[in-house]
């Protein structure tokens, strides 16, 4: 508007387009998205805690050992929900709430595997399965290594 008044040219041009169009672009509702992510992510964790307690009380796992079957169960459920076409809808609603827990990791792998099934099991499913999840593994391993070294050095 000010530009028009002082006659410095048009509001829309290729140089300042990115700024000019900002008011036209829908703003994400950050607060609402945070609340949704918090609630859904929290519920997934509460469910996981329930599973842990179940494995401890019913199958006599120790607190530490119960983590493994809990993770496996969550992965199984998330993979099934991905296959039934439910997890992507949950993801659209919850955002990071369903992406950050281990269920999001399972969804990334299962969805890629499903997507590339038509290209065969070796070059399709096998080589594309970690297309999305691969970088989580790479940078997870690298950061674990760095933190491990730091811990070693600092506790010597």
């Amino acid at each position, binding site marked *: 508007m000010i530009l028009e008044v002082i006659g410095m040219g*048009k*509001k*829309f041009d*290729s*140089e300042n*387009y*990115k700024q000019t*169009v900002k008011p*036209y*672009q*829908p703003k*994400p509702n950050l607060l609402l*998205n945070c609340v949704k992510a918090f609630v859904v992510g929290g519920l997934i964790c509460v469910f996981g805690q329930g599973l842990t307690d179940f494995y401890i009380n019913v199958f006599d796992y120790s607190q530490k050992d119960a983590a493994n079957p809990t993770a496996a169960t969550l992965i199984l459920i998330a993979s099934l929900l*991905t*296959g039934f*076409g439910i*997890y*992507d*809808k*949950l*993801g*659209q609603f*919850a*955002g*990071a709430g*369903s*992406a950050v827990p281990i269920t*999001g990791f399972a*969804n*990334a792998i*299962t*969805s*890629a595997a*499903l*997507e*590339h099934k*038509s290209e065969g099991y070796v070059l399709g499913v096998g080589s594309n399965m970690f297309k*999305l999840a691969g970088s989580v593994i790479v940078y997870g391993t690298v950061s674990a290594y760095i933190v491990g070294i730091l811990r070693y050095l600092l506790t010597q």
Partner: protein
Amino acid sequence: MRKLGKQTWFYENKVYLNETATVAGPREAQGPLGNTFDITYDDLHCNEDNWEKAERRLLEQSIQTCIKKDNLQTDQVDLMISGDLLNQIVTSNYAAKTLAIPFFGIFGACSTSMQSLALASALVDAGFINNAVAATSSHNATAERQFRYPTEYGGQKPASSTTTITGAGAGLVSKKANKQVNIRVESATIGKVMDYQMGDPFDLGTAMAPAAYDTIKTHLGDVGRTPSDYDLILTGDLSSVGSPILKDMLKEDGINIDEVHNDCGLMVYNSDQQVFAGGSGCACSAVVTYGHIFSELLKGNLNKVLVVATGALMSPTMVQQKETIPTIAHGVVLMREELNQS
């Protein structure tokens, strides 16, 4: 005069859009234009094993239906011009193999519908061919895989993203009119590639608005018309984000299209269908133009329409390399013509 101004082709020998056909997927069939499509599917797989085959079926069916409606056999069609969104435009290539019509494959992203129609009309006008079929297709799941993530991946999309529509549209262009009331392809304005430095593949409406702006402004200048000379100026898939930008850009040049503008991406779905900012994809402008608009022109509810199909010409690799998104728009004028008038 065949060439008007810098970018507009005027089809001097009259060229007619004799028949059209549209095929659409489940969500499009539930939309407000659901009853205008010739064939609809209630499942994204369209009775095929994989998404790519499903899209191919849509394209083949649209072309076959279109040819059949005009009482022709495939071997009586001189040329097929078609394109789609997949790598190496495989949907079109494989459909052309099945149909065995002499074939040009083109890529114009979502501008393909009008790009193919403009080219087909030019070749008919020039007399190289007597008729041609112009077609294009897109499929929500193949496009997701091509440009975004696996279909079942639970990533959150922003509100500015669009929904690639599942469908295909075909139009048969001929030098002979075959009805009492005919739809004439009057002229076409070939767009230039525009790049206003937008890089977000989840906001293509904003990226494509400058291309539509440039093509509409050039078209009106080339043919010496104002927006009120048209009953409708229809953009392809600018969505609810890009459409207001286009209108305001044109207003800066003193061109007001508020009264006559609509966007195919906004017409194809109901507002409660959760499609983000609207529909997109090659088939978006094709199924709306070849379905609803074609029949409105025939009925006489519309007389002269400028269809501006907009396309974003990026690839996922270019986006990851932080390149901006080049865009294009091609405009074609369709007009109603009664035989005794001419």
